[in-house]
């Protein structure tokens, strides 16, 4: 009895049960939708379960890492990520016209995925170092840390990831207290530089934006995804067509229906009622993350927790926005629901950090 208690204690000591329940609930939803989206493909559902188990294990491991250790990891992880990104630029494999993957013999990896965690970690670490009195040059330094890898990712090109990473970096800057004047200035500059941005964009990227503005311009080409997913969601109505009864999904009218567009499958089969439940589940998880963030004790933990939380929100909003046709199509999975191991692991790694922040004794800088 005592043994079992010990094991239970060992397993749950650094786990935030509130957050875990929320995550498991969303994962369950994910498996149910995936079963339908893959046409009752048990193999793929099991595969996703394995992904989830691995991701949960990673989360548990990370949750067990004391924060001092985590801080020490920030710089090496960032530098490793940067080296790998340079490696991609030099020796990367070209796939679909983009150079995103690096073959490291054993397997192929996508370093930009690592950077999703490494950059906020690095920036949070950086701000923690200069914590006492943050000055403009500190923000500039952090911005350089952010832009270096972002530029490399843009070159691949991978606009979606670059934007998401920039966003997660911006969250760190914002939460660290970047002056409002600079934020407004940046916003104005960004708006002003949009035309310039337009000219350097790749054709397919421009097309995606045009398509967003008017999907009917190219209903069989670039607009097809948006139109079909809007149809799926809209035709679901209030209560949906029922599990495994979504015609758009089951008859393959939806693109990428188990990965990026899985929300359309869910929405078609469970309707607005399902969407409400799903959004509430997400809000629950986000709420818990915010509480953890608000209670974090150090600059480093606050910033990293804030960035992870807000990035999680960004994923949800961007994915649902693109699937429902109000944002351009960028390759962003729906967190905890979309099929795929990498994003699942990255996501739970983030939650592991949050759990570690919540459950470890408040630390001091060494």
């Amino acid at each position, binding site marked *: 009895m005592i043994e079992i208690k010990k094991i239970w204690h060992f397993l749950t000591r650094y786990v935030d049960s509130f957050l875990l329940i929320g995550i498991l609930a969303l994962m369950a939803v994910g498996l149910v939708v995936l079963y339908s989206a893959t046409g009752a493909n048990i193999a793929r559902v099991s595969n996703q379960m394995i992904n989830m188990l691995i991701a949960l294990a990673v989360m548990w491991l990370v949750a067990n890492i004391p924060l001092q250790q985590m801080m020490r990891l920030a710089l090496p992880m960032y530098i490793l990520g940067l080296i790998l990104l340079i490696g991609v630029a030099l020796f990367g494999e070209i796939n679909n016209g983009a150079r995103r993957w690096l073959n490291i013999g054993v397997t192929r990896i996508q370093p930009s995925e690592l950077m999703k965690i490494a950059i906020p970690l690095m920036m949070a670490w950086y701000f923690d170092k200069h914590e006492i009195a943050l000055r403009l040059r500190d923000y500039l330094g952090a911005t350089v840390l952010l832009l270096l890898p972002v530029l490399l990712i843009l070159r691949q090109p991978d606009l979606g990831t670059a934007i998401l990473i920039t966003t997660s970096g911006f*969250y760190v800057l*914002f*939460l660290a*207290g970047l002056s409002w004047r600079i934020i407004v200035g940046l916003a104005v500059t960004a708006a002003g530089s949009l035309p310039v941005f337009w000219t350097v964009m790749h054709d397919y990227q421009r097309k995606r934006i045009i398509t967003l503005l008017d999907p009917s311009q190219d209903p069989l080409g670039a607009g097809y995804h948006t139109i*079909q997913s*809007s*149809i*799926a*969601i*809209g*035709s*679901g*109505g*209030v209560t949906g067509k029922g599990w495994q009864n979504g*015609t*758009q999904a089951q*008859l*393959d*009218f939806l693109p990428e229906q188990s990965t990026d567009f899985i929300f359309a499958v869910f*929405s078609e089969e469970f*309707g*607005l009622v399902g*969407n*409400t439940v799903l*959004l509430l589940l*997400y*809000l629950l998880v*986000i709420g818990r993350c*915010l509480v953890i*963030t*608000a209670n974090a*004790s*150090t600059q480093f933990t*606050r910033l990293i927790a*804030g960035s992870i939380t*807000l990035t999680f*929100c960004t994923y949800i*909003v961007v994915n*649902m*926005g693109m699937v*429902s*046709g*109000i944002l351009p199509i960028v390759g962003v999975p729906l967190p905890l629901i979309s099929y795929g191991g990498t994003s699942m692991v990255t996501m739970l790694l983030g939650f592991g950090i949050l759990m570690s922040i919540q459950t470890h*004794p*408040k*630390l*001091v*800088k060494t």
Partner: protein
Amino acid sequence: MKQHVELELRNHPAELHKFRFRLSICAGFVLILFLILYARFYYLQIIQQEHYYTLAEANRIFISPLVPNRGLIYDRNGRILAQNYSAYTLEVVPSQIQDLEATLNELAEIIEITPTDRQRFKKLLKESKRFKSLPVRSRLTDEEIATFAVNRYRFPGVEIKARVLRQYPEKEIVSHIIGYISRINDQDLEQLERNDELHNYRGSQHIGKIGIEQSYEKQLHGIAGFEEVETDAAGRSIRVLSRTTPIPGNNLILSLDLGLQEAAEKAFGEHRGALVALDPNNGEVLAFVSKPGYDNNLFIGGIDQENWNLLNGSIDRPLNNRALRGVYPPGSTFKPFMALAALELGKRSPEYSMSDPGYFSLPGVDRRYRDWKRGGHGRVDLHKSLVVSCDTYYYSLANDLGIDNIHSFIGQFGLGRRTGIDIEGEVAGLLPSSAWKMSQYKQKWYAGDTISVSIGQGYNLATPLQLAFATMIIANNGKAYVPRLVKQIQNSQTGEIEDIPARMLYSVYMKPKNLEVVKNALVDVTRPGGTAAKAGANAAYTFAGKTGTSQVIAIKQGERYNEKAINERHRDHAMFIAYAPAENPKIALAVLVENTGTGGSTAAPIARQVFDYFLLGKPAEAAVAQLTEPLADHDHEHL
């Protein structure tokens, strides 16, 4: 404990406050974004739900038309004239194939594709939209189907389809009546759209183009059914959701007697011409010959260039429906109607006779209008004028009647206007009048014009169908029945046969005694002394008729017609109108034989064959041998 103190120290309240404020802003922002998302879902799933539901249904439900089987066509005795058969066809969708030529060559290695097939396909290709499925070969054998099935993966865009195809077993014998169906072209589509019938033709590949197939298209086509098929994004059918079975077209039973038609065909031998035989009791078309005919099966799948050139370029003009659309001067077959006009309008009595010097001149004019017989016929009364076909009698009669009397009286026999037969394309011919000449040529009518009209020449033009119609009206004592080819319609669903009632347009009032005079004369035409005596010899029934000759080229004043000197194609056409048995007519007809000279010698014998078959059941034989020697002088009736 020390740790905690330090921690508290580092957690400056102001700093923490600032952080929490910023975090709240972010949280608020996230909430707003979620609300926007929720608003979007609300818009899509509540406000626009119906719209998107419709789109989703349109995505998945493919309405697949089911083509109804076309109605069959029978003759009056139940012999089949147009039928359907199921066959497998090899079809190609050009838009799905990159190199059509190469694909055809490859196909030819496993399935026989003749040069004719290729030509036909090429013509079809030019006339069709590229996404339509076009047949390359039809009537594939089981072996060919198996061979293709094995090699199918090599030929994307090529498919074997089960089709119901049309066939006309009698080919050229009835081609001018039945016509044909052929592939629906752009004009047909426009027409269908205008008539709001397009929905009934989704999936149909063919439509009636000419003949019965065209005029009874509505009856024959049937009503399309459809299947709602659930399909996936790749277009594969998943399951049938609902099915409305098509209603096959109705069967047509023609008044045509195929046996009689064959007898008439045979009687023509190798000659070109036309014959229309009507039932004087109701206007039913018993035979409707236009020679030469053509193989109407060639047109169904689209005719190949070579065959088209052969048919369209032939000097014999096999595509020309002579019975319906060929206009010829009626020649002396016009005389019985002139005679009736004379009696009815009181310009001549049966007893009146005149002396025929062999020509006629208008008072005060030098020009002589010659009779066909040099020196004339001696004393001629109305009876004799018909029996020997005296021209002079009618020249003088014409002058007394005047053109407008001729026009209005003879117009009652249907000359100069369409009979209203139930196939399209009929022409009206021409029965001239002074008003017509004024409007056509801005010239007044001359007395001389009437002279040539009186013997069926001049401006006079009639179709064989019109002449048969006019003859029918004499035979049945004035009843103008609309000629019709379709006698009955059989409902495809119930099998019930509906009779199409005879339609009498009007009746021509003629005094019985006047009619009797003319009819008696017409009987004597086929008796010894008459112009058709040879054809009428030993007939087992009384046989009334009138010979005629239709001029192809005008003979100048002072010249004689010399058959031998004239190009075969410029020789006169032989005409004959007749009915039998004279006392109770069961059949009335008009015969035209092109470029064979006189009616008595070539056209009348054909009529005799047809009557013998129809009334006695006697099999026909070629009535007239190919013209090799000039006709004997004694029965050469010219003009």
